């Protein structure tokens, strides 16, 4: 680049984390708690191959579905920006997940302890992809239904996966849960 050209603004390096989990577990709430902007929503058209995806569709044809994902961001400094993407937790959106998750440094799987099985798809996904992740039990009404050990056992996550309790509405709580994931990601770089 020569000195005579007007400079194009240099964008920050985007660092992406993904927040996942079943319906209504607090994904959007968590993104909104930490984001510096109101969470934005975008719809993406996805092509899904129905075969073997779920039992709602019996035809093995390709269908196009529109799903919403929401996201927020946090400027770390002028050269670095954290992006948080909340993904639909349903298994059949697997295709969509790859589109969002590719390149993510880590994931947070939010669980509502009153219905733990809602998060299996998300846990499986991150395990399968080898993406560092933690499980965050959202303390609806200020408490969780099970001990962390019970949650760990029920989800059958390996020892290396941190399980924490958090409150999706509390900024500090979401921050700390994300830090757990980032520390895990950092530990992996020196492994």
């Amino acid at each position: 680049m020569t000195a005579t050209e007007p400079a194009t603004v240099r964008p920050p390096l985007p660092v992406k984390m993904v927040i996942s989990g079943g319906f209504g577990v607090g994904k959007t709430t968590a993104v909104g708690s930490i984001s510096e902007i109101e969470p934005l929503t975008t719809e993406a058209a996805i092509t899904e191959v129905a075969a073997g995806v779920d039992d709602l569709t019996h035809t093995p044809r390709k269908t196009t579905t529109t799903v919403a994902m929401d996201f927020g961001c946090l400027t770390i400094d002028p050269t670095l920006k954290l992006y948080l993407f909340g993904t639909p937790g349903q298994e059949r959106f697997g295709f969509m997940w790859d589109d969002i998750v590719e390149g993510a440094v880590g994931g947070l799987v939010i669980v509502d302890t009153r219905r733990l099985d809602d998060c299996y798809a998300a846990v499986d996904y991150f395990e399968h992809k080898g993406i560092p992740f933690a499980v965050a039990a959202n303390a609806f009404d200020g408490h969780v239904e099970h001990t962390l050990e019970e949650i760990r056992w029920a989800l059958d996550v390996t020892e290396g996966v941190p399980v924490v309790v958090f409150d999706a509405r509390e900024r500090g709580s979401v921050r700390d849960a994300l830090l757990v994931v980032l520390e895990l990601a950092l530990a992996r770089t020196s492994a």
Partner: protein
Amino acid sequence: MADGTPAPDPAGFASAVRPFLLTAGRVADDGADGHWLPVETQVVATPEGLDALDRLTFEQHDIVAVCRLPQSLAEIAARLRLHLNVVRVLAEDLRAAGQLTVHVPDSGVVQDASVLRRVIDGLRAIPDARGVPSDSD
């Protein structure tokens, strides 16, 4: 936008046919070998793009205009209510025409320990609550 374009449909998003027209039938696809541009890919208008604003058609105009400051593909799609894949295609066209720069994050750099440490330090500095005092403590 305040330019007299009709309001979007009730769902707030264009029909499935429209994005197809916008991109002249091309769709971003992740084909056998190809890759999507990641959703966090940063896009910035070039001085040439800003100069050419008047000559650009609606969606291309809006994309360049919204990228005066760096935006991710996802932000562009959300702010302009366009499908993500339409933004992917149009941003690529605008890049080829020199009107935008498109910065695909290098996952090796993003996942580098020094970058992760900076994110960790930056996040640690975030206070428990926002500036507005909350009713908790």
